């Protein structure tokens, strides 16, 4: 088994007690001369970059920028973080409703050029319908999976082809297709998730990686997992999404959600999921900067280079 791929989740609405990355950094007390005065404004983005740089310098595999209608826009954040790294896979989360598939592909082709083919898509389908309507998206229920399938079909068609004609339930394209420098780029790696019949069928057709959630209270039932995986048809790779709480000593642990334990225990848990077929782990812990460095320096080395 090769080393598992660790993906670190970017907080699109800030984290920590100062809500870094969302609110402006707090003002200093009046007794301190603020070093920022007189210079260009610092933005919450600077903190998001600190996190992704920590992931990059710490040898993690990638960063995930979730779709969050009440947070920063994920494609913009992805574009910014991708340019500030050489190795990180940058996984942008978004639903099909945000744009036409041609436009989403066009934006993504430019991002692929900007960071040398490290962009991935995590297409979100099963969103809260009230949230969707607030974003102007009224496609509901199982139709969302049908639309996602069309979205991916069209995006891949115009990405790879010329003179693409397409007529479907949701989209129509005439003589589409990218040319010039936009042609010939690697299509973003497609991550999908969900355990409904529709979700698994969509992944079987379109996903490169299917992401399972680790239930907050514990384990993934092996029987159910086997059932879900059998529905994926064998092609998609498997990823696990979990919060992580790792400390040097057991006495320092607080809380018990997600992957948790000493550095060795968390590494063992990840390795055990690796033996069950998971090669990618979407992890998060607050504050994201400090915890990214912790995982990079204390857990990642325990997972590296195991044959």
């Amino acid at each position, binding site marked *: 088994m090769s080393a598992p791929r660790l993906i670190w989740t970017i907080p699109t609405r800030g984290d920590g007690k100062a809500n870094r990355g969302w609110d402006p950094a707090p003002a200093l007390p009046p007794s301190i001369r603020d070093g*920022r005065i007189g210079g260009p404004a*610092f933005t919450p983005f600077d903190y998001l970059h600190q996190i992704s740089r920590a992931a990059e310098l710490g040898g993690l595999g990638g960063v995930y920028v979730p779709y969050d209608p009440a947070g920063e826009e994920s494609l913009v954040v992805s574009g910014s973080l991708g340019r500030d790294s050489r190795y990180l896979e940058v996984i942008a989360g978004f639903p099909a409703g945000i744009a036409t598939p041609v436009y989403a592909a066009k934006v993504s082709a430019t991002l692929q050029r900007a960071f040398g083919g490290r962009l991935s898509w995590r297409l979100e389908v099963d969103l809260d319908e009230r949230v969707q309507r607030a974003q102007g998206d009224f496609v509901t229920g199982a139709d969302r999976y049908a639309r996602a399938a069309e979205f991916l079909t069209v995006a891949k068609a115009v990405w790879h082809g010329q003179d693409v004609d397409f007529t479907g339930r949701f989209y129509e394209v005439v003589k589409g297709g990218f040319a010039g420098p936009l042609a010939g780029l690697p299509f973003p790696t497609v991550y999908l998730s969900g355990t409904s019949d529709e979700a698994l069928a969509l992944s079987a057709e379109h996903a490169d990686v299917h992401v399972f959630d680790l239930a907050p209270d514990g384990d993934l039932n092996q029987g159910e997992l086997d059932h879900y995986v059998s529905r994926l048809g064998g092609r998609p790779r498997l990823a696990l999404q979990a919060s992580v709480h790792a400390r040097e000593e057991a006495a320092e642990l607080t809380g018990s959600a997600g992957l948790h334990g000493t550095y060795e225990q968390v590494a063992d848990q990840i390795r055990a999921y690796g033996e069950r077929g998971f090669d990618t782990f979407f992890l998060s812990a607050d504050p994201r900067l400090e915890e990214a460095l912790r995982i990079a*320096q204390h857990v990642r080395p325990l997972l590296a280079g195991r044959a």
Partner: protein
Amino acid sequence: MTIDIWWRIGMAGDPSSLRTAHRQSRGDWAPPGPDSITPGTRDGEPDGYGLLDYLVETARAAEGLGFHGGLLPSFPGTDDPWAVASALARATKTYKFMIAFQPGFLSPVQAARMTASLHRASAGRVAYNIITGGGGPPQLWWGDKVAHDDRYARTSEFLDVLRGVWDGGPFDFDGRFYRVRGGGLPGPLAGLPFPEVFFSGSSPAAIEAAGRHADYYLSWLEPLDALRAKFDAVRARSAAPKFAVRVDILARETAEEAWAEIERGWRHVRPEDVRAQLSRDGGDSFGVRRAVGFQPESFTGFRDFEVEPGVFAGLALMRPGPAFGLVGSYEQVAERLDQLIDLGVGALILAGGPHLEEAYRVAEGVLPLLRGRLGDRGPVTLSA
């Protein structure tokens, strides 16, 4: 009057915490291992990053949090601050570079040129931490054999020459250590704002020279009464400059958590190193000799190095850097910093390891609790 708060940068990298303080796993000053970053490995190959990439992250953290800038220390076992500052200048926006250097190591005209160019690269963000004392084998490692008190005379000349050429000249100088004929910085390099000078040194010769040249008289952290006496001595000998103190900090939500972190780090300290620390004499450095004088006379456990409440003198046994630091809750550490400010301190150079994460911790946990100078807090009634 407001206080300038600086944040040191780890010029030889950082350990990931005091628990592994013997191993600078960030940067390449320690042998590479699986936990190394900058440089790290990807797929078994070096990832092409270096210590400078980590220093950029630390500097960006400090400036985003509102620190005035960073002290860039200089030792045989660190990268060079002039070179690092020139690289950080383009990667930061408001961060100021307090460059530590000893005048004997480069010509004053060259120092002026380097400073002016760095000012231009950074829109005037250079400050000096001028070190003169020291001594013993480290001084000869640099190839500097000038005697201790002569080094202060040389520093004075060095700064006279530096200021002499700064505005463009022509400048002539005949001194014991330097000669210049028709010197002066050229064209746009000339006449920039002169860097703030932080002047270190605990000896009488140092205090004399500080009076002539320093914007700030800079001291290591010492017990409060000792610092008060030191500052009084400086005030007595010179038109009082401003005062600055370097303070390492280990602060946590509670004092118990802070001391537990010291306790964990102390597990790696070897008893023979403790004995060596307690028996050393400091060479011809006044500052180190003073520090030795504040150490515990006997040793039964790490808390013996708590030389007054919250002031811990054992940090140098746990990691490279100054011996003294403040340990305690955010409130306790803020209270101690306010006491320093009340002594007349106008600039604090804070530090904590690892410098990246601890910049956030100190800025979010400690700094908001600072009250500032006594006189700025409204009327104070003193009873006789």
